[in-house]
């Protein structure tokens, strides 16, 4: 056996210089890339007769993009920084997209056809306020002007070059500006808002020079609340602070008048306070009382009358001027499985311009937003298209009663990802549909052979490439030998689960979780966590695997939790329940029951532990291991780490046998004046470790790795230094790193990096941890490695004792028994700042590891762990070189070929997930952010399988030819011998 391992090591070492790059024709063979934009916040159509029809959108993920209206593809896209929230977009001059972002302080213009930035200007003001962007038709010296209210100041900016033409401050304290209105054809703007919550303020301002024309104010003792709706260019509708009285505020010709109408006068059975749905439709507005949407018309004389009460979920779009003085608006209502899209004229409720009914996928949930756009049909009548945003953040274009295209933009905001195996290929399960017939198979191989023998024409090469890319083999719905085909199950912020096929990235199923659906009991549900719940193998293969989704009703930590179980093959919700307790932590335990359901502990905010699944069997297993289960909690806001053991009963009078109390065992209190927790990281629970020994070839020595699942890496920085890089001097900044045993609370190792600062990104694997931070003294980023070795087992070195098995290396270890560790560490400079860091993981843990670094440029860079070896020295000895030790350098190299995302970018990269394939050499890498990227990655090359371009046909033909040649020569020689004998 050891010799085989020596051979294995030899194999691994012989492949020490892996070529990580790929050839151009290998792009897309194992990787796929999908681009998303996130939930659309605002959309502006650009449908001029000339040029491509497109829609400009801004999203909640700070993306500005233009989409092709025919297919929904992205023309161009800009991802702004995470604190650069888009406040508004307009199209100016028919060729610029003007965006206001970063709380109204940055105004940018982008060229509409290609997305290049034309100009940028920054707008400053005295204090933070609501940001409004209004396109005007005012022309100053041939410049079109946009008017922006932001940071409590009114700005007029030229569309051509972004120059601020004038700005205007308002003297009134606490003015909350609600609207900036330019009545059509006028040269002034109204700025209206509330001051001190009981005064209505109106300013009339000359749009050409910012001169104040008029200022009126009116007091209303009831106060104002919420949003306002504009019903004409000089009339607003608002609600009083109780939400029971409608206020029609008119400021016609500068005379402010407030007219009150109690809602109960309009709607007889109005049960509670109403909410205004902000809109700007002529003479019409909508309010919402509970789930009922009420449309109210404001007549010319100022009377309010209810035109419709809609009991179904309704979304209202903004007004669209279709012709002189005529406004249309879109309305979408749910009715069972269908949705009804209605386009109405603003002044005529009864006359529908368009009424369409479309069957909608139930998994998309409710409609959140509607944007309509008109076009002129060939017969001169108006046609309408509607862009709708659904509850699951997907974006759909409806036209002529059908869904023209849809985009699954919910995938731009993945919270958590897990994987699931596909069904096993059985005799009964027919996969013949995707199977090729013999002729095609032969044809394919002949083509390949031609390619190998360089006989292929360009068309053949194209055909070969197409065949390779569209290989049905990789997108089958069954498990494969190498474990490449899996389901990636992703939970998105919208509460939807997606199952993506790793072969081609298509969505196998999607499920809008009912448990994470907004309901009476659960007003603001959020998904928290996704765990594999049941992973059947061996004896439970008949069961389908399932995942556990944990959520919570509301953002506070004591909100009640919700859980649901979802079948990973079919995507059906098996069961779901609202919990009576809250969910603060989800701890998967290393035990499974007889149906391979994993035991989970859910810790609530009162530090009670709840065991799932709630079966007697689970409690039996749990009771057996009861005394060995601990948990810890890191309270990062007050700098305390606490460890707990479980008590056999819940505190208080809860008669629940699945509930367990906890008692505090240890606590580590970090001094809050000098340390603030910025990062914690632990080992992955399912990581496979092949060996506990680290071989040191130099002197044929062995060191024992300290491999423990109960290790926690904690990084703290000086509280002053927790801000931006460069905000503190090196003297008052430090980074302290701890390695803590979470069972006993014992601090195994502590290191202080003086003059260093966060942000800290770290990854923990086997017995080492690599972390990344900024060194203020060197003005560079650094990566450090700490390797931990167990000194108490170091004397297991007698070969004879090992041969006969007299050693304690495989006996179970308790955290209470050992304490002797040695650490080796080293720091290296690194050029990039990074967004995420992960490490490759393989099935058996034999293959050497590489770090996967999500760079600031949204790419994934592979870096061999050997570069982060603490034993690197300036002049390694011959033996060390053979072992693969790289000579010491002060910085880590960035090899351009080792970007595993090659030329692609995973915009807004947030996480990198590695999943082992069955093939030991290969790991599956999934990077997600706004975009998704998936690839296979072999850290030491695929030493255990033939390369993809290996020609089986060539091999077979060679063998056949050889056998034939042998036979022929044998016959010939026989004949010759016979002739010789006759002679």
């Amino acid at each position, binding site marked *: *056996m*050891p*010799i085989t*391992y*020596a051979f294995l*090591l*030899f194999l691994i070492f012989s492949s020490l210089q892996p070529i990580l790059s790929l050839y151009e024709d290998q792009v897309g063979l194992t990787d796929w890339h999908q681009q998303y934009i996130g939930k659309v916040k605002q959309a502006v159509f650009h449908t001029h007769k000339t040029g491509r029809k497109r829609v400009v959108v801004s999203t909640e993920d700070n993306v500005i993009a233009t989409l092709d209206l025919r297919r929904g593809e992205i023309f161009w896209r800009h991802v702004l920084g995470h604190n650069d929230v888009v406040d508004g977009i307009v199209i100016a001059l028919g060729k610029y997209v003007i965006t206001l972002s970063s709380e109204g302080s940055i105004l940018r213009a982008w060229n509409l056809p290609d997305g290049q930035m034309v100009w940028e200007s920054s707008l400053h003001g005295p204090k933070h306020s609501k940001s409004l962007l209004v396109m005007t038709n005012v022309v100053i010296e041939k410049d079109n002007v946009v008017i922006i209210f932001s940071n409590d100041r009114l700005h007029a900016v030229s569309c051509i070059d972004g120059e601020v033409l004038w700005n205007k401050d308002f003297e009134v304290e606490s003015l909350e500006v609600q609207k900036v209105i330019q009545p059509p054809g006028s040269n002034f703007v109204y700025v209206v808002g509330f001051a001190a919550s009981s005064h209505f303020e109106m300013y009339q301002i000359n749009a050409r020079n910012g001169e104040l024309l008029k200022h009126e104010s009116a007091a209303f003792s009831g106060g104002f609340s919420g949003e306002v709706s504009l019903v004409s260019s000089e009339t607003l509708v608002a609600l009083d602070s109780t939400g029971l009285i409608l206020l029609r505020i008119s400021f016609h010709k500068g005379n402010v008048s407030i007219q009150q109408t109690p809602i109960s006068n309009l709607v007889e059975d109005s049960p509670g306070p109403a909410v205004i749905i902000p809109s700007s439709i002529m003479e019409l507005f909508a309010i919402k009382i509970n789930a009922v949407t009420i449309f109210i018309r404001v007549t010319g004389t100022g009377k309010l009358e209810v035109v419709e009460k809609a009991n179904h979920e309704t979304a209202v779009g903004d007004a669209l001027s279709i012709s002189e003085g005529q406004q249309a608006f879109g309305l979408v209502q749910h009715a069972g499985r269908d949705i009804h899209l209605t386009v109405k004229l603003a002044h005529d409720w009864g006359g529908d311009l368009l009424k369409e009914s479309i069957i909608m996928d139930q998994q998309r949930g409710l409609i959140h937003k509607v944007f309509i756009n008109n076009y002129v049909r060939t017969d001169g009548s108006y046609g309408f298209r509607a862009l709708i945003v659904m509850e699951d953040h997907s974006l759909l274009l409806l036209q002529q009663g059908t869904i023209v295209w849809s985009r699954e933009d919910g995938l731009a905001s993945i919270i958590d990802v897990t994987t699931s195996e596909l069904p096993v290929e059985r005799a009964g399960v027919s996969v013949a549909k995707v199977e090729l017939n013999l002729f095609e198979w032969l044809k394919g191989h002949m083509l390949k052979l031609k390619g190998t023998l360089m006989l292929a024409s360009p068309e053949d090469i194209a055909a070969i490439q197409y065949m390779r890319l569209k290989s049905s083999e990789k997108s089958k719905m069954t498990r494969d030998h190498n474990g490449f085909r899996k389901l990636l199950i992703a939970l998105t912020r919208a509460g939807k689960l997606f199952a993506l096929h790793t072969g081609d990235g298509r969505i196998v199923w999607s499920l809008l979780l009912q448990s994470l659906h907004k309901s009476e009991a659960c007003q603001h549900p959020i998904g928290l*966590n996704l765990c594999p719940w049941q992973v059947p193998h061996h004896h439970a293969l008949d069961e389908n695997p399932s995942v556990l989704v944990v959520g919570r009703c509301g953002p506070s*930590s004591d909100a009640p939790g919700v859980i649901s179980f979802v079948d990973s093959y079919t995507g059906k919700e098996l069961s779901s329940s609202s919990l009576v307790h809250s969910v*603060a*932590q989800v*701890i*998967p*335990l*290393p035990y499974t029951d007889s149906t391979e359901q994993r035991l989970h*502990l859910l*810790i609530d*905010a009162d530090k009670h532990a709840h065991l799932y699944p709630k079966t007697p069997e689970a409690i039996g297993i749990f009771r057996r291991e009861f005394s*060995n*289960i*601990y*948990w*810890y*909690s*890191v*309270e*990062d806001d007050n700098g305390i780490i606490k*460890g707990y053991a479980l008590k056999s009963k819940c505190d208080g009078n809860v008669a629940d046998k699945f509930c367990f109390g906890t008692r505090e065992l240890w606590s580590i209190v970090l001094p809050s004046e000098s340390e603030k927790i910025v990062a*914690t990281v*632990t080992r992955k629970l399912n990581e496979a*470790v*092949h*060996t*506990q*020994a680290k*071989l*040191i070839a130099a002197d*044929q*020595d*062995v060191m*024992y*790795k300290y*491999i423990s*699942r*109960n290790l926690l890496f904690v990084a703290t920085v000086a509280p002053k230094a927790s801000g931006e890089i460069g905000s503190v001097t090196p003297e008052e900044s430090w980074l302290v790193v701890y390695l803590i045993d*979470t069972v006993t609370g014992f601090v195994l190792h502590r290191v202080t990096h003086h003059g260093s600062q966060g942000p800290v990104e770290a990854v923990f694997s086997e017995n080492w941890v690599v972390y990344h931070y900024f060194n203020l003294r060197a003005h560079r980023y650094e990566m450090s490695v700490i390797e931990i070795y167990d000194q108490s087992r170091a004397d*297991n*070195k*007698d*070969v004879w004792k*090992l041969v006969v098995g007299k050693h304690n*290396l*495989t*006996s*179970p*270890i*308790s*955290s*209470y028994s050992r304490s002797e560790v040695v650490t080796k560490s080293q720091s290296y400079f690194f050029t990039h700042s990074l967004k995420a860091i992960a490490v490759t993981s393989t099935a058996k843990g034999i293959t050497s590891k590489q770090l996967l670094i999500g760079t600031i440029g949204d790419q994934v860079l592979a870096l061999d762990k050997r570069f982060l070896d603490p034993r690197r020295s300036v002049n390694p000895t011959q033996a060390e070189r*053979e072992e693969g030790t790289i000579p010491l350098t002060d910085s880590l190299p960035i090899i351009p070929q080792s970007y595993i995302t090659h030329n692609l970018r995973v915009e807004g990269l947030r996480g990198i997930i590695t999943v082992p394939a069955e093939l030991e050499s290969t790991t599956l890498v999934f990077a997600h952010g706004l975009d998704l990227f998936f690839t296979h990655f072999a850290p030491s090359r695929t030493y255990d399988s033939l390369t993809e371009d290996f020609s089986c046909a060539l091999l077979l033909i060679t063998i056949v030819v050889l056998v034939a040649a042998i036979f022929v020569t044998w016959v010939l020689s026989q004949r010759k011998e016979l002739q010789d004998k006759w002679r």
Partner: protein
Amino acid sequence: MEKGKGVMGSGRRWAVDFSDNSTAPSSRDIPDPPGFTRASVDQDDSAVSRQKKDAESNWKAQKAWEVAQAPFKNLLMMGFMMWMAGSTVHLFSIGITFSALWQPISALQGVGKVFEPYKDNKVDLLGPKLLFIALNLGGLALGVWKLNTLGLLPTHASDWVSSLPPAQEVEYSGGGIPL
């Protein structure tokens, strides 16, 4: 022999037939060469055959020793080859090492066969055999030593512990920053 007689018959002046065991002076008129005494040779027929046998067994013994020493040359050559091969693991060094191991083993298996032709109840084959075995064992040792220098022998603690899985942990602890 016949040829010699033929030569003799065709007018050679004299010839000594060493196989002529007759004790009497040569039947021909040519006297024995000076210093040649027929008396020293065994007198009777059995003595003659014994003498013959002795010579043969001497020769056999000599040959056996030669055969027994043959692996020594081999050993030297192997040593040289091994020195040439170096101490890194690659195809050549592995080939050399395995042939160095295989040759002595196959030779040892065929010890009986190698000494078969020299088998004689007069000849003491134990010595050559022992030498042969010793030399082959030497060769084997050289091969093993080479194997060891290549690092392919499990003589270090590291060879035995690398196959051991990591030890189980008694306790389990989970948790982290509250969600």
